[in-house]
Structure formats: C-alpha cells, structure tokens
C-alpha cells in the first residue's frame, strides 16, 4: 500500500516537472539604455550589440569565462598570414527558416565593410570575405593580425536572401539618411526571435526552438523595458514590474539587497579608471612655464599623494578594487606583478616634488566627467583635496560627458579621468594602440596630451602583427611595465558591475557588463 502511494506521489511529481517545463518562463528586465537600431552594422554602441547578440549569432563567441569559442564557425586556421579559413557550422537555420551557408557570411561581411556602414571600423583589418565552398569562407586581411577572432566575436551574421528580399543589402546609415527594413526588423540564427521592437518603450523576444546550440537557459520569453533614470528603475524592480535590472545603481544596492525578494550580484568589471596626464611642454593650468609633469618624479609624487584606500572605502563604498596597472586581470597583457599601486604617502610625494625642484608644488587643472563612470565626480573631488594636502594647487572642473570628452580629445586638459575596458576586443592591445602609442594616423586615438615614448610605439607596432600569442602578450606586459615605471598614467580602481534581480532568477554577471540571457534561469 505504502509502495503504491509512493509510486503515486512519484508520478504526480513527474507530472509537475513536465508541467513546469512547458510553463512560460518570462524574464522582464530593464536597463538605462535602449537598442539604438536593429541593424547590427549601423551603430557602434555596445549595449545595442549586446541586445543583438540574443537574436544574431557571431562566427565565434565568448563563453561563460569570456574565452572565445566556436559559434557559427566550428574551426579556423591561418592559411597565410593575411588569409584565415573558417569552417562553418552545418544545419543552422535563420529564424525565417532559411538555411545558413557561406553566402550569408560573405554577404554579411561585404555589407559590414561597405563604406556606408557605421560599424565598419569594428572589422577594419578585413578587406574581403571569399566563399571557398558552401561551408568554408576565407577572410582576407590587410596583413598579419592577431585579434581577428576578438573582432569577429562582435560581428553578427545576417541572412543574404532576407537582406535581398527586403531591399536591405546596403546598410542603414545616419549620414546618408538610409533606413532599411533591417533597422527595425531582425532575422538571425540566435537563441531568441524578435517579436516586437518599440524604441524607448519595449522589446520582446521569444525563445528560438530551432537554435543550433543546446540552450543553457530555460526562458521562453524576454521582455525588455528601458527606464532611463535610476530611481524609477529601482522602483519598477521593487514593485515587481520587472524581474531584473542591469546595471543597478551603487547607492541603491544596500536597499535592494535588504528586501526579502531580491538579491544583488556584484563582479569586478573590466573597466579600469585612471588619470591621464599632460605630457606637453606647458600645462594648461599654468601656461608660460615648463610642464612639471615631464619629470617622472613629479608624476610619481602625484601617484603617491592619492589615498586610494580612502577612495575605495568612502567614495566607492567598498565596491571597487584598487589597481596599479591599466588592464583588468582577465585581459591578455595583464601581469599581477604590475598591479600594485604606489603606496599612499604624502611625505614621499612632497620629497619627490622637492627633488624635482617644486618644493612648493605647482598649479594644474584637473578635469572630470560627472556622469560617465561610477562616482567619477566624487573621486575627483577627493583627489583634488589629497593633492592640495601635498602642496599642489588644483583647479578642478567637472562636467557632463557630452562636453567633457571633446575637451579631453582636444588636449585642453592637464589631468583627466578616463575609464578603459578594452572593449570590444578584450585585449591589452586596445590600451596600447589607443592610449599608449603616439598620436599618429590611426594609432593613439585616445592619447590627446602628447604622450610619446619610442619604446611604447615600437611595442605597440610589433604586437599588432605578432601571431605568436605568448610573445605578443609579453610585449603588451612590457609596455604596461614601462607605463608603470614611468608613471605615465595614474591608475585608480577597477569599477564594480552590479545587477539586481528577484531571488528566483539566476543570471551570471559578466565583467564586460554584457547581459547574456542565454545563460539565464527563471525558477
């Protein structure tokens, strides 16, 4: 009798499980940004790319550990230094049922490197994609290029037949005023199918039952609602109108975490915050005199005078990690030996200043954004106070990012706050090419203040074409060592990324701040 009852219970349990599997699992979430366009090649915005990744697949993608793994391409090899051969996955179907072949890859890459495509800079080293057979494609490059896979992990593959049928072969572009069918519609191979896209209102996706990969998620539907301001977004979570918010504002984490039904997940982000310095002949803050920051001892003094622990505790509420280098631990080129800030010591700072011939300090500008990085304004206010204690006269100015970055770009600043996450390639080369190399041609795009060190230029150029990975990483580490030894930048901290969600939801948080809902579980 007992046996029969137990079997009955087991059967009921099985039924419940079966019913649970068929049940709708909707995840409603919100962020401050919104999808700018559905056309993957018509923008360069990381949040929009992030959302596209749910609908479109790239040839290679990042796994749970942010390592590159096969997606629509199953394998690849370097045929010649400037020719890579990719073998494509077979049996993949687009959402409208069209089969995925080499033609789609060629059409996508051609569309991406079209002069009218806004995103063509994302794949600037590729000159053509050539079909070898139905499931083999060659990528032709301008020269040896070690980061092709990194680039391709952000390039989504579209369907040739769909583009042609909808007159969307030419990418949409702001400047020409071209808006295509693909700007508001999508047909990818990804884990979710777009149902509704209403800009600034809602985007709804349903699970793709025919996805080529075995889903690690249990969602049937995603409802995304952008909410611009922090307070209403938190309110929407607490009132149960959304299930998750990413990111969650730092000042509300304690409140959300204290509520019974919610949890907060924090991870160190890839984004490191540092201060850039003026390396030119004169300071903006004190024109007509030689620039004290040309002297390594002065730069080191500035570093010694920053009390990172206090900033970490008070300004960042204990959520950040102090750093001594310019890339985060998961990034190629990182070395733990370099990741040690100069010790906070006002006396050391004063002594170094005196040794350099500035016993009474000097005058400098400090420019900061107030809406770009977490607590950026407060960080700068704190640093200005700390430098004042070391005898330096600081002229602090904080402003919105829309006016701040043009100012920095024009080199009109002496000391400026900057965050760098090495995205999208997730590689130390991003720092070397944009920040460390002298500003020439396409290199040094974010080096506006005259930093020029032949050793850094040389390492950047050589690492750009080095296909031997250990050698390449050693070069990047060497460049970062020079930067630390010379105190060319003053690294501050690694930003946290925090998401808040209902306790019933499991979503892994990634250091690149990407939301990857194909790993989400709703219980």
């Amino acid at each position, binding site marked *: 009798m007992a046996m029969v009852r137990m079997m009955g219970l087991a059967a009921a349990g099985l039924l419940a499980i079966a019913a649970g599997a068929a049940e709708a699992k909707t995840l409603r979430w919100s962020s401050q940004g919104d999808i700018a366009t559905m*056309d993957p090649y018509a923008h360069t915005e990381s949040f929009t790319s992030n959302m596209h990744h749910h609908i479109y697949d790239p040839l290679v993608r990042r796994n749970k550990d942010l390592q590159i793994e096969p997606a629509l391409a199953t394998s690849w090899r370097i045929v010649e230094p400037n020719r890579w051969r990719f073998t494509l996955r077979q049996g993949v179907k687009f959402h409208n049922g069209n089969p995925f072949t080499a033609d789609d890859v060629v059409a996508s890459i051609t569309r991406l490197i079209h002069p009218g495509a806004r995103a063509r800079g994302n794949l600037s080293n590729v000159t053509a994609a050539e079909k070898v057979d139905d499931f083999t494609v060659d990528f032709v490059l301008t020269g040896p290029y070690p980061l092709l896979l990194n680039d391709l992990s952000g390039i989504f593959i579209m369907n040739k037949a769909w583009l042609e049928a909808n007159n969307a072969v030419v990418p949409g572009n702001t400047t020409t005023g071209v808006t295509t069918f693909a*700007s508001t519609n999508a047909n990818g191979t990804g884990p979710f199918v777009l149902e509704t896209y209403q800009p600034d209102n809602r985007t709804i996706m349903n699970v793709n039952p025919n996805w080529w990969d075995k889903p690690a998620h249990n969602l049937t539907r995603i409802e995304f*609602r952008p909410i611009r*301001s922090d307070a209403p977004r938190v309110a929407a979570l*607490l*009132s149960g109108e959304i299930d998750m918010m990413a990111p969650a504002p730092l000042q509300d984490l304690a409140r959300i975490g204290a509520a019974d039904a919610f949890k907060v997940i924090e991870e160190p982000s890839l984004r490191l915050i540092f201060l850039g310095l003026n390396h030119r002949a004169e300071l903006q803050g004190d024109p007509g005199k030689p620039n004290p920051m040309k002297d390594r001892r002065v730069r080191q003094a500035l570093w010694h005078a920053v009390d990172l622990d206090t900033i970490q505790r008070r300004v960042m509420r204990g959520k950040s990690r102090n750093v001594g280098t310019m890339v985060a631990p998961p990034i190629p080129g990182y070395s733990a030996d370099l990741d040690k800030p100069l010790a906070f010591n006002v006396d050391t700072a004063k002594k170094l200043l005196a040794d350099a011939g500035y016993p009474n300090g000097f005058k400098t500008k400090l420019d900061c954004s107030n809406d770009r990085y977490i607590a950026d304004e407060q960080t700068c206010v704190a640093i200005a106070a700390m430098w004042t204690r070391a005898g330096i006269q600081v002229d602090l100015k904080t402003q919105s990012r*829309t006016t701040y970055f*043009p100012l920095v770009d024009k080199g009109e600043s002496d000391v400026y706050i900057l965050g760098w996450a090495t995205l999208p390639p997730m590689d130390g080369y991003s720092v070397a090419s944009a920040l460390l190399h002298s500003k020439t041609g396409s290199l040094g795009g974010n080096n506006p203040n005259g930093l020029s060190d032949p050793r850094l230029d040389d390492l950047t150029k050589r690492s750009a074409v080095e296909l031997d990975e250990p050698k390449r990483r050693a070069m990047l580490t060497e460049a970062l060592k020079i930067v630390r030894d010379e105190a060319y930048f003053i690294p501050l901290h690694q930003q946290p990324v925090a998401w808040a969600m209902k306790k019933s939801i499991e979503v892994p948080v990634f250091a690149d701040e990407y939301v990857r809902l194909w790993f989400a579980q709703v219980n």
Partner: protein
Amino acid sequence: MARLLLSRLFQVLLVMMAVTAVAFIIFRYVGDPVNIMSREDASVAEKAELRAALGLDAPVIVQFGRFVGRVAQGDLGNSFRNQRPVAGLIAERLPATLELVLVATLLALLVGIPLGVFCALKPHGWLSRSIQAVSLVGISTPTFVTGIVLILIFSVWLKWLPSFGRGDVVRLGWWTTGFLTTSGLRSLVLPSVTLALFQVTLIMRLVRAEMLDVLSSDYIRYARARGLPSGYIHRKLALKNALMPVITVTGLQIGALIAFAIVTETVFQWPGMGLLFIQAVSFVDLPVMAAYLLFVGAMFVTINMLVDVVYAIVDPRLRTAGK
C-alpha cells in the same frame, strides 16, 4: 480678423527663426555627437570622416543655413541616435505626450475650478484655509519629487498602479491611444496626477482670486440687492466673468505642460516627446533637439494665437478693437 491672423503668422515665422538660431548657438556647447557616435577606440581619421559626413565640420552659420533650407522643404533630418527620420519619431511620440497633457489639463480644471470657487465663497472657513495651505505644498514641490513619492506609495508599497511606461496601447491610424485599455488607463493615473498637481494649485488660486474680485464688484452687489438667488449669482454672473483669465492661463499652460512633461516623462519613462528630447540631449542628437525646439516653439506661438482668437470671440470688446 484676417489681418490679426496674418500679422500673427508673420510673428510665428520670426519667432521660429529666432528659436532655431538660438538653438544652433546653444548646440555648440552641448557637446560633440561624433564622440558619442564613435567607438571608444575610434581613430582620429574615422572621427574626422564621420564629422564631415554629418556636415558638422562646416561653420555654425552654414549648418544653420542648411538646416533652415531642409526644414523649409519639410525635411527635419535623421536622428543621430537611432537613424530614423525625426519627423516620424516626433509623430510617434506626440500621442503619448498629448494624451498625458490632455488628462492632466482636464484633471486640473475639474479639480481646480470647484476648489477655487469654494475657497472664494467661504474665504474664512477652516476647510478653505487648509485647502489653501495644502495647495502651497502643491505649488512648491518639484515635479520629480511628487512623481517619486507617488511611485513609492502607489507602486512600491501598495502595488496598485504601474510605476512606468504607457501600458498597452491601441493603434488608430498613426495615433496610438492608451485610453482604450485597462493597463493604458492605469498607467495614465500617476503621471497625469503628477503633471496636474501644479496646475490644480495654479488654477485654484487663480479662480479664487478672480472670484473674490468679481464678488466684490458693483454689479454683483446690485444683483444681491435685487434679491437674485445666490446660486444664480455665483454661477451665471460671477464664475463666468472670473473664468476669462482662466482660459488664457489654461491655454498657455497647455504649452508649458507639454514642455514641463519632460520631467514627468523621465520619471515615469513615459514614451512621449519629453523623453525623446532628454534622450537626445544625453546623446547630443542634434537633429532631434533642433526639431523638438522648433516644435515646442511652433506650439507656443500657435497656442498664443488661438488664445487671442478665442478671446476675441468670447469678449466682443476685443473684437471691435481688432478691427
């Protein structure tokens, strides 16, 4: 009347040109769209090329000329942010804002006028005094505070009403309406109350002051002396005359409401034009900003013109003076 309209139309054009010119001068200080549109590690050449393609390398005066030329042809350009035609974006957002403003205005009139009349008729009663006191709070609390407090009470604690968005909408031609669904109506409550609060206080105080003024005038005293019923005096004689300035103010306030809706729409993530503008500002989306300012300018002048016309219709003395 025709001359009045014509001269007004000419003024409209002048005002619009001035608004656009001022907007273009301000645009130089809001930031650089090229920076925001580019990848973080975009090269200098890439940025320069984009700047040239957007026409932002030309002097401001040339950009202004081009803009006016395009607008004259009915082309408002494309948004830098989502690359869609600005005219379409505005048309898409207009219903949300207008419905919100309509409800808020009705709310303000339906609550404000009776309260004002009541306070005028019983100026020394304790209820009038407390209404007056509370109205001070209404007039001095910033909209975003009211909005957040309402969200906290009715969404987070009581969970009665949605805290953001417009709910489900029904499409009628190009217009989308939230009036026809339950969730649409529920979503309207908090934002429209927030938006109306200031107006309620304003209209109430205005009606009260005007009523007190009219009630102490000679013809009301005559009417009282004639022994006319007090209901007739208050409604037909006093209120009707007291409402004249209310018409003006309400008309002008509709314009202000559409403009002030920026804050309310941001707090409630209301997908209207205010939100569109705020997003455009943070993205330095110049075409959208320019078009929005142009639109708001046009709206203000049009409303002003309409109010003048309505005045002329309501008050025969003005009509003769106009001729």
